[in-house]
């Protein structure tokens, strides 16, 4: 009998190739078409005019635990507290826009390959047992006396407890979820999702894919089970989760341009959220970005050093200031816009929070420290992620009949160095 020789070379190769097959794509990308450990829905709307349907799926054959938080980014002016706003220029002179950026936490459990859905305004209840739909009968959710949805499906949790809490009808913000194991972050890369924003009057829908951030599953360098998620992985070697992109790019019609086929006026709403989040500290992450636009005539205009905290949701007609958009018809019919975080350091906490800095001492007093002792002082301004939504308005028709279409932005490059940080409660 011939002895089968085992080759140590091949064994070593085999071990690592096995890791390759199961490891996520070694690239360092935030994507909208693959699964990940951290999943971000940048635009969640429940404002009494529109509502959002979230679909979240487990794409693996294993049971998955998920921790989520809604971030409500509704803002009010500092003195005229009743006036809602998004950035400072929405407020009267000498006032600033204060965004609460409050987080509401909840937890989910998904079985193998399980998809779930819920309506954000009402949330959804766990019901055990739950009757499935039957042919010939309407397959629908019903509203419980608590105002939450009861839907057919197997949801892990306590009977009649909230599977997902409701956010009500005064919510504009984002949803972020990450995979856990016994409460700690876990690099399972199992989550994928979509969001459908629907108008309550016209049923016009827009749908986009959630953004996913893959985690480093290498046991040597994997997601450290502390309460800080570090987005500092290139896809190879050490690091926890993929870096955010170096820039975002998208093509949009100029504001106010008339569409040749429909005669409608087209407007684009851009939603940006920071890659960094200070959930534990309940502080918004400071963002500094640059917009550079090229029209079809290759002409360029740009907005330098645009600032916002926590969440931005603006029509192009209002960038950089309300009513003072530069990516408008009259300056071109089509714009390709690149959004790049500025390579500057800003204070994440302290008495000078939001100010530019070169060292922690520039941030004043009360500089905070994260749950894993990362000093939250002078750090690189946060990366950004986002989606966009088009609105087609037919002249003379009310805005609730606008046609809408959401789309994901393109990513270029990857950030480097410190990357981004999400502190968890």
């Amino acid at each position, binding site marked *: 009998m011939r002895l089968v020789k085992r080759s140590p070379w091949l064994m070593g190769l085999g071990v690592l190739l096995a890791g390759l097959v199961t490891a996520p794509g070694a690239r360092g990308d935030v994507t909208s078409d693959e699964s990940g450990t951290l999943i971000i829905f940048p635009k969640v709307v429940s404002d009494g005019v529109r509502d959002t349907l979230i679909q979240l799926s487990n794409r693996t054959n294993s049971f998955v635990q998920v921790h989520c938080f809604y971030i409500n980014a509704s803002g009010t002016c500092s003195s005229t507290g009743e006036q809602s706003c998004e950035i400072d220029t929405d407020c009267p002179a000498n006032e600033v826009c204060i965004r609460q950026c409050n987080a509401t936490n909840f937890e989910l459990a998904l079985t193998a390959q399980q998809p779930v859905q819920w309506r954000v305004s009402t949330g959804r209840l766990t019901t055990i047992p739950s009757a499935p739909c039957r042919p010939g009968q309407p397959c629908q959710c019903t509203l419980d006396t608590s105002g939450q949805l009861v839907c057919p499906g197997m949801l892990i949790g306590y009977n009649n407890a909230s599977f997902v809490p409701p956010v009500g009808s005064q919510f504009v913000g984002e949803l972020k979820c990450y995979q856990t194991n016994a409460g700690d972050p876990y690099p399972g890369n199992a989550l994928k999702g979509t969001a459908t924003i629907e108008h309550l009057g016209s049923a016009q829908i827009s749908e986009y894919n959630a953004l996913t951030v893959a985690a480093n599953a290498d046991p040597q360098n994997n997601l450290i089970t502390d309460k800080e998620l570090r987005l500092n992985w290139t896809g190879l070697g050490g690091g926890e989760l993929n870096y955010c992109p170096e820039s975002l790019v998208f093509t949009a019609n100029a504001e106010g341009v008339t569409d040749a086929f429909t005669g409608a006026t087209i407007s684009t709403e851009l939603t940006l959220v920071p890659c960094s989040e200070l959930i534990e500290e309940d502080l918004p992450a400071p963002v500094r970005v*640059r917009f550079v636009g090229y029209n079809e005539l290759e*002409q360029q205009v740009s*907005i*330098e050093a645009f600032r916002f905290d926590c969440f931005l949701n603006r029509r192009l007609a209002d960038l950089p200031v309300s009513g003072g958009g530069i990516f408008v018809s009259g300056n071109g019919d089509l714009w390709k816009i690149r959004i790049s975080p500025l390579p500057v350091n800003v204070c994440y906490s302290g008495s000078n929070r939001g100010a530019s800095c070169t060292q922690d001492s520039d941030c004043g007093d009360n500089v905070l420290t994260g749950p894993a002792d990362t000093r939250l002082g002078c750090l690189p301004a946060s990366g950004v992620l986002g989606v966009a939504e088009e609105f087609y308005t037919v002249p003379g028709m009310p805005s609730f009949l606008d046609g809408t279409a959401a789309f994901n932005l393109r990513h270029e490059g990857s950030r480097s160095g410190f990357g981004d940080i999400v502190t968890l409660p």
Partner: protein
Amino acid sequence: MRALYRSWLLGIGMLCVFAGAAGSQAQQTRAGTDRPGSILMFPKVVRTAQRDTIVQITNTGNSINWVHCFYLSAPDGSGYCGAVDFELVLTRQQPTQWRVSQGRRVDPTDSFGSDGAGFDPGLIPPVPPGFQGALVCVEVDANGAPLGQNRLKGEVTIMDDSTGDVSKYNAFAVAARSSSVDNPLDLNDSEYETCPGSLTLNFSPRGSLDPVIEDLGNANLDSFIATNLTLLSCNLDLAAGVRSKGTVSYIVYDEFESPFSGSFPHQCWTTIDLGNTGGTTGQFRSTLLPGGTIATIFAQAKLTLPTGLVGVAESFHIDQVGVTGSAASNLHTGGAKSARIRLP
């Protein structure tokens, strides 16, 4: 005697040395308004319900010139300046102009005699309604890198759309001192000229009567003069939009040589109302020198700057029925301060 003579000569020699030193200091060049340069700074650009601004830029050279321009504004009162930028191309000796409320498109079909007639320099976005800020233009090469050819000159006309009244001033032009310039732009007399260290303006204190209007028969003696001062920092981080701030000290002399002094904070862009008028109430942020402080109708203010600043003053002369005439003037400069402008 001989020792005394020697000491006397020594004194003259020392004086000559000091005078020479002063002379060499006087040779230190700083930004001016009367010759072309590589950086143009227009401290006051406005677009309100009533007023608009026309910007004129001219290429004084015999070859094509690229220009990178930045509108700066500080709309929220925090002193933080954001920028919207665009690019121009000027052919040899080409003057160009645009109205900031409309901007300018590239449209080769503009008819002769229309606003857009002539070679369009590039796409210029309009500023939003209510805009108050500045414009900075930098000479660059075709790739956007700074270039020190010293061929740009500029003027601004601020116009009242309802009355047709106009004010006009020259842009500050900062000349390149070296053929080798790069980003950031160092205004240190080595790469580019320095910015002024002091600014001087003559003005009529708030509430002064206009002697000309009075002479023409303003029987109710209600004529009024007010002055607005606008300052733009020479330290501009156009990439990061970092706030620039400090404190400006001033000393004012009236016609009796009586001094009044004080200070006020400045930011990236600052506008100070040296008085209130019916046409400008609410437009400006602070008031200096309330009426009655200065006993004469004419005064001189010297501003000592902690950092390089350029500025322009605009005076408003109002008669008894509220008709307003305005006039802008460049400020006299003195001293020198180094500064830095960082392009994106």
